């Protein structure tokens, strides 16, 4: 019931609306009740409304408004990229992206694979049913 992910300096968040949709950013300062200053290694530091941010579990250790180099170093030290890509949320996003970029031929191959897998599962199920 209590909140676990807080808006704080160093909190890693995902932008979920707007031009920067899908970008992982770090909160480097709080401007006022509604806005935060966010930064990412490949982005110009900018303000973003909290409503556009989805907080993640990852937090890095930085001082208020660090220089870009220090930010990058802190992100490397906390291993944000790997932690994100191994988290279940991060993995789901990667799968979504992969599925959206599928070719027509790849979609066809995927369908064949799904049918094959379903056939194997059904076989095992029928075996189990028969044995009981």
């Amino acid at each position: 019931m209590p909140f676990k992910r807080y808006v704080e300096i160093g909190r890693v968040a995902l932008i979920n609306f707007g031009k920067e949709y899908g970008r992982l950013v770090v909160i480097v300062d709080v401007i006022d009740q509604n806005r935060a200053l966010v930064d990412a290694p490949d982005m110009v530091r900018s303000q973003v409304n909290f409503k556009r941010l989805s907080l993640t579990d990852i937090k890095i250790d930085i001082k208020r408004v660090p220089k870009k180099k220090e930010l990058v170093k802190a992100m490397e030290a906390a291993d944000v990229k790997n932690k994100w890509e191994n988290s279940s949320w991060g993995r789901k996003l990667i799968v979504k992206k992969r599925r959206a970029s599928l070719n027509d031929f790849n979609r066809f191959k995927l369908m064949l694979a799904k049918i094959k897998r379903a056939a194997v599962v059904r076989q095992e199920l029928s075996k189990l049913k028969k044995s009981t």
Partner: protein
Amino acid sequence: MAQKQRTRKVSRNPELIRGIGKYSRSQMYHKRGIWAIKAKNGGVFPRHDPKPKPESPAEKTPKFYPADDVKKPLLNKHKPKPTKLRASITPGTVLILLAGRFKGKRVVFLKQLPSGLLLVTGPFKINGVPLRRVNQSYVIGTSTKVDVSAVNVDNFDDKYFSKEVQKKKKKGEGEFFEAEKEEKSVLPQQKKDDQKTVDSLLLKAIESVSDLKAYLGARFSLKAGVKPHELVF
């Protein structure tokens, strides 16, 4: 001696603003060196008389003049060129046909004909689409490519696909009451052989890729929840 390379004629009178040059008439006269040419030629600008034309036979006045002036149609030298091929469509691309008898079928693109239409084949054994012409607008180009370097399509053009001219039959009275003999148009053996030669080479290339044969044999369709504008082809 090799031919002198003519450099492009650059104007000696730079443009200040459109229609106004930097130098006046007399300044340009001096710059062009007309005075030097005249001096070399004894005070007169050299003149070349027109070459004597060979004697043409005297033309007779026409016998007939039309009563009213006949308007000549305007000259039109426009030559149509084949439609621009989309960059995604190259020889060997798998296309999805969107209209016609074979809608939804996935088909291999061979070449663009001089009329602009695309020459396409199933291959026939895989999905029943023969060597056929198809309009680029009714086609989705996928990013799947088949190797068609082995296939020779040079002898196919628009004339190959033109309809046979029907000979007009004179209907006599007796023939009205006879059962109308429907002449079935049989596909000439030549076309069947052409299909076979093109397809045999294609089939080898297709079977080398796994699942491609089944892919070409299946029809494309939209399923529930599939958004065509978000699909990547």
